[in-house]
């Protein structure tokens, strides 16, 4: 019983990380129709840049080291995303395949430059004392506090996204843009600027995932491919451009991965893809996607 509960909790904490990363991917795709193949690269950039701020501060014993790393990593990813949209993708709006190819090219260059600058050694953040150590969870016993915090952050991200999308003017513009870009522009909204804002927000979420992920487990080269794949699968399963769908997809994939690894370790990947194929066969637009 203990084991089952631990596996489920592991699945949920993993799902929390997947949700944070994939929600950014889904957001960018929802409004811009851009498949951001550099999403994994943005995850990795934020992790490494954040770490290079975190490390010297941590060595000096500053209590705010982790928060500074988090802030800088997320800000860097956001700025990077805004630049990508402004300089490269903005002027080829509507050419979806070409945009996907551009982001693939970017991800190759970014991953290679990260390897050049930071080398192949894995990095891992140490969470601040307040959220370090373990917490007693009823029915399980001691469980890493940070992983529980991870769930909290994911819930906050989900709620925040929902509030931004449904309760603010920006959200209103974003939703209007999903339905009809041209009409939105005709209403006097600066659609390209909304695009930059959305891309930047999506990249910031990838960055948030990067720092959080690098705190929960070591960050190493190759993380970009892993998290790009996760984002793809979660969004395909959950439905394109739907926050709730992304959450559902993340929980499903996170649980499937943990349960699969516990029950049939070397075949666990198959379970994830059986889910994906089943969803595609029954609902090509994803579980909660709009047709």
């Amino acid at each position, binding site marked *: 019983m203990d084991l089952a509960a631990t596996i489920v909790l592991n699945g949920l904490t993993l799902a929390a990380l997947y949700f944070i990363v994939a929600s950014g991917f889904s957001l960018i795709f929802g409004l811009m129709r851009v498949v951001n193949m550099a999403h994994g690269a943005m995850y990795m950039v934020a992790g490494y840049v954040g770490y290079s701020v975190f490390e010297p501060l941590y060595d000096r014993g500053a209590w705010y080291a982790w928060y500074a790393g988090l802030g800088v990593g997320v800000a860097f990813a956001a700025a990077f995303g805004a630049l990508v949209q402004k300089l490269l993708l903005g002027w080829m709006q509507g050419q979806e*395949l070409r945009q*996907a190819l551009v982001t693939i090219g970017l991800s*190759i260059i970014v991953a290679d430059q990260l390897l050049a600058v930071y080398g192949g050694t894995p990095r891992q953040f140490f969470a601040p004392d307040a959220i370090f150590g373990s917490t007693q969870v009823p029915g399980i016993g001691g469980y890493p506090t940070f992983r529980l915090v991870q769930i909290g952050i994911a819930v906050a991200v989900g709620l925040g996204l929902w509030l931004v999308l449904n309760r603010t003017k920006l959200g209103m513009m974003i939703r209007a843009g999903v339905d009809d870009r041209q009409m939105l522009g005709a209403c006097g909204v600066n659609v390209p600027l909304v695009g930059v804002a959305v891309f930047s927000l999506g990249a910031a979420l990838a960055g948030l995932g990067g720092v959080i992920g690098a705190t929960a487990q070591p960050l190493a080269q190759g993380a*970009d491919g892993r998290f*790009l794949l996760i984002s793809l699968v979660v969004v395909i399963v959950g439905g394109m451009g739907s926050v709730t769908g992304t959450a559902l997809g993340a929980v499903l994939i996170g649980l499937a991965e943990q349960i699969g690894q516990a029950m049939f370790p070397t075949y666990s990947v198959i379970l994830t893809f059986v889910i994906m194929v089943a969803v595609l066969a029954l609902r*090509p637009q994803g579980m909660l996607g709009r047709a």
Partner: protein
Amino acid sequence: MRSAAATWSLLGVLALLALPWLLAQVLPAGQAQFWTANILGRAIVFGIIAMSLTFLATYGGFVSLAQMMIAGVAGYVLAIFVDGAVPRIVGGLGYSLAVPLGLVAATAMGLLVGAISVRTRDIYLLMITLALAMGVFRFVETNIAWFNGYEGIRNVVGPAMPGFDVRDPMVFYHVALGTAALLYFGVLYLVRSPFGLVLQGIRDNPRRVAALGYSVALHRIAAFGVAGFIAGCGGTLSTIYNIGISPGTIGLGATVNVLIMSVIGGLGHPVGAFIGSLIFTVFDTFAATIYDRDRFNTLIGLVFLVIVLVSPDGAIGIGARLRRLLAAGRR
């Protein structure tokens, strides 16, 4: 126009057949062999895999990122079943049986990928095929029982008969070239057959094709099967070229490399795949002299980015534009 292209292609193949001897005349012996085996041979092998993508993209409008994975399926099945591979997974078959088995597996995987993605188009198709490719990669990497996990399977040396040793660069080069030429002309023939015409109809307007009474789904799946077979041929050759196969050869990097080759060469004609793979291989080999050996990915990434930004139809497009410019100048 079409037949002129075929004639030029035939001349090109003949020139390539003779190229190793020409190289041997011009270059010192070691260098000529290096060019034959490590640049031309490799470019042709990867050109075949890239052509399976170019075929799908040019005539069906499907940009599939699963082609390198499908090539890997052929390679892995070959390595699993052939005698002499290390470690021995199943073994017991000679190359004359293991190679066709690999090709059948690759074709089946192609059909499967086509069936799974049959209701999607454009970037959705791109995402799903990439997800499938990465899924197989991670499965192969973590599974020891069948694929020997991270290490992969070594010592797939290729068939050896008296007077015909695939490990001889000259023999390998000509086998690869012959395979590539057969597949290339096969594709050119196929796209002018009724099947190919329906495929191009699906690319331009699937609803109309469906209204004419053709099954869009079946034609799409069949096209993926054909592409799977082509990729499988490339995968078999590359496995023999590399004397084995490991998960790295079907990872994200390799998958993207195939896309880069196709795009650099140009998605518009099957020949683009080979032009692209040659450019890629030359860059790969001489990156050390141009920029920095370890930063090859940055270099090729930049080239790819520039091509996508400036000339989305690749080297073929640049060539066509130059020809038009020259023709305009003459007038």
